[in-house]
């Protein structure tokens, strides 16, 4: 049996040193592993910064505003890619937000039985699991050929607008935007659905209780109450769209010639990296690193902003 002689209290049932050591070292280990996250972030930043040093000193801030990208003459400017990154992500967001939030509302209201809602919810989550490269393959061989007549029609009827001024010829910004919509829809839908589900039932009951119609309650009570989560989800989706690589690379055309037209081939920072990094050397590597740094900065700002917005808005509504 366990010894219970009452000689000296704290030497009784003394935990062996090995046990205390295990306890201590486990704590230290967990702390170290946790701090690895910070370490990796810093390492990413340092690697990218060090790699882009020579391009930064050679081209300075002009790198951001010029659209020359010529490995032969060793001139680099990332404006086309930066413009492409921002335009594709924002336009895809404009399309995806109403679709995603509308779907989220459809999934949280009782329009159809729970079973049906669960199946749609599962399908949206599975859509998020489809690898980007498979969506790219699908975009090249299925979506783009299907879309071509539509884009041709756009060019024919709205060609006087600079955004539709070129003849669509396969890969381009417009199909890239649409495939981005497919890629960010699941995030927006999932986060919007979670935010809507968190709206207290009492609030909904209160709205119905004073005679609001269903969509009156949705627009005036439920959506405003869930706005912080939805905004956060939209910002996260924006960050994801900016960094999304494979599908965009495969369908955007990877052209560094700047064009306002959405029907013309373009480039994003991520697709430029995917397309050129493997074969680049010298100043081109450094320039690509510089572009990677810009992309990192953009996504970092968006993500921090997303967290900040969620915190600020949720203070107001809960």
């Amino acid at each position, binding site marked *: 049996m366990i010894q219970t002689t009452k000689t000296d209290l704290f030497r009784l049932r003394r935990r062996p040193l090995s046990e205390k050591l295990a306890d201590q070292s486990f704590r230290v280990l*967990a702390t170290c592993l*946790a701090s690895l*996250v910070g370490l990796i972030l810093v390492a990413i930043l340092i690697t990218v910064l060090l790699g882009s040093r020579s391009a930064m000193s050679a081209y300075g801030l002009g790198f951001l505003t010029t659209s020359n990208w010529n490995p032969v003459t060793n001139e680099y400017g990332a404006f086309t890619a930066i413009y492409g990154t921002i335009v594709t992500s924002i336009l895809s967001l404009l399309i995806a937000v109403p679709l995603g939030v509308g779907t989220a509302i459809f999934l949280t209201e009782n329009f*159809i039985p729970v079973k049906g809602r669960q199946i749609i919810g599962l399908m949206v989550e599975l859509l998020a699991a489809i*690898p980007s490269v*498979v969506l790219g393959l699908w975009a090249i061989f299925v979506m783009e050929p299907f879309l071509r007549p539509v884009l041709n029609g756009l060019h024919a009827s709205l060609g006087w607008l600079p955004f539709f001024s070129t003849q669509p010829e396969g890969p381009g910004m417009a199909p890239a935007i649409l495939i981005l919509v497919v890629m960010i829809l699941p995030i927006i839908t999932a986060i919007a659905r979670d935010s809507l589900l968190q709206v207290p039932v009492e609030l909904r009951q209160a709205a119905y209780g004073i005679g609001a119609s269903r969509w009156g309650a949705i627009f005036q009570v439920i959506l405003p109450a869930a706005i912080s989560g939805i905004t956060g989800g939209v910002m996260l989706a924006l960050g994801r769209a900016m960094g999304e690589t494979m599908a965009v690379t495969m369908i955007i055309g990877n052209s560094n010639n700047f064009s306002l037209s959405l029907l013309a081939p373009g480039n994003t920072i991520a697709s430029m990296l995917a397309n050129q990094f493997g074969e680049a050397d010298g100043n081109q590597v450094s320039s690509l690193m510089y572009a990677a740094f810009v992309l990192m900065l953009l996504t*970092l700002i968006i*993500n921090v902003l997303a967290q900040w917005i969620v915190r600020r808005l949720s203070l107001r509504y809960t």
Partner: protein
Amino acid sequence: MASPARRPSLSNIRSLHRKPKLPRNRWNGFFTFLAGLFAVIVVLPLVLVLAYVVIKGGSMMSLSLLTELPPAPGMTGGGIGNAILGTLIVSLIAALIAIPVGVGGGIYLAEYSKSGAFASFVRFGTNVLSGVPSIICGVFVYGLIVATRIFFDQSYSAIAGGIALSVLMLPTIIKTTDEGLKLVPQELRWGAIGVGASKFVTITHITLPTAFKPIATGIVLSIARAAGETAPLIFTALFSPFWPEGLFSPIASMSVLIYNFAIMPYDVQIALAWATSFVLVMMILVMNIFARYVGSFNKI
């Protein structure tokens, strides 16, 4: 609903019956239709992508496809055996790195730090890291490992690809571990500590096993996601038309194969890209559904 025609006695001056012509009801109907339409539009891509992958890729399934090497450009036949094996190897390397680090970090957040500046820094860092584009992970590992040739003077290697994927998996695993452990009722920890268990024993014998299912679900999902990633691999693991030659050489993977073959001008390669997509998508969907199935029981 009630049918006004059969019960006229109820329709007095101010009837409670639904008037479909009311603007309010028309708007409600319109918005309901719109929301349903949006839901269909959102689901449509999944159906279409799956349909094409199954039709174009599934029809090519055969044993030789799964076991042979890809053909040289211009040749026919061949398979994607090396890419399947490569994806398994690279994902395994990534999992072996990311699981201990991620679970350890999650344990720190959930069990050792209730608040405090360092913990909120780690949480913030996890969120930031999960927002870092996957291509940046590739650039990072390229700069850290490939360009510096730190592993036996090898540049592109399976291990570099695995490390790049593990950076991608890390935030997900930390978050699911943290959240899974937070689901464990505080009373269970008290119970263990109340009989004299140390923190180490409490975590390893009580809290971790209790939270096993949600954590395992998160880990399987993160592996499934990593297995389909391409961007971090294209200039870390690169590609190889041969069978894997070891952890320190370039290695094929299904995702990079799809990318490479999709933009080749040969029909054979494009067909192989569809077949690979089928294998990859099925693998990922099975992992997803399995994880959700396990996760659906995780009422602690």
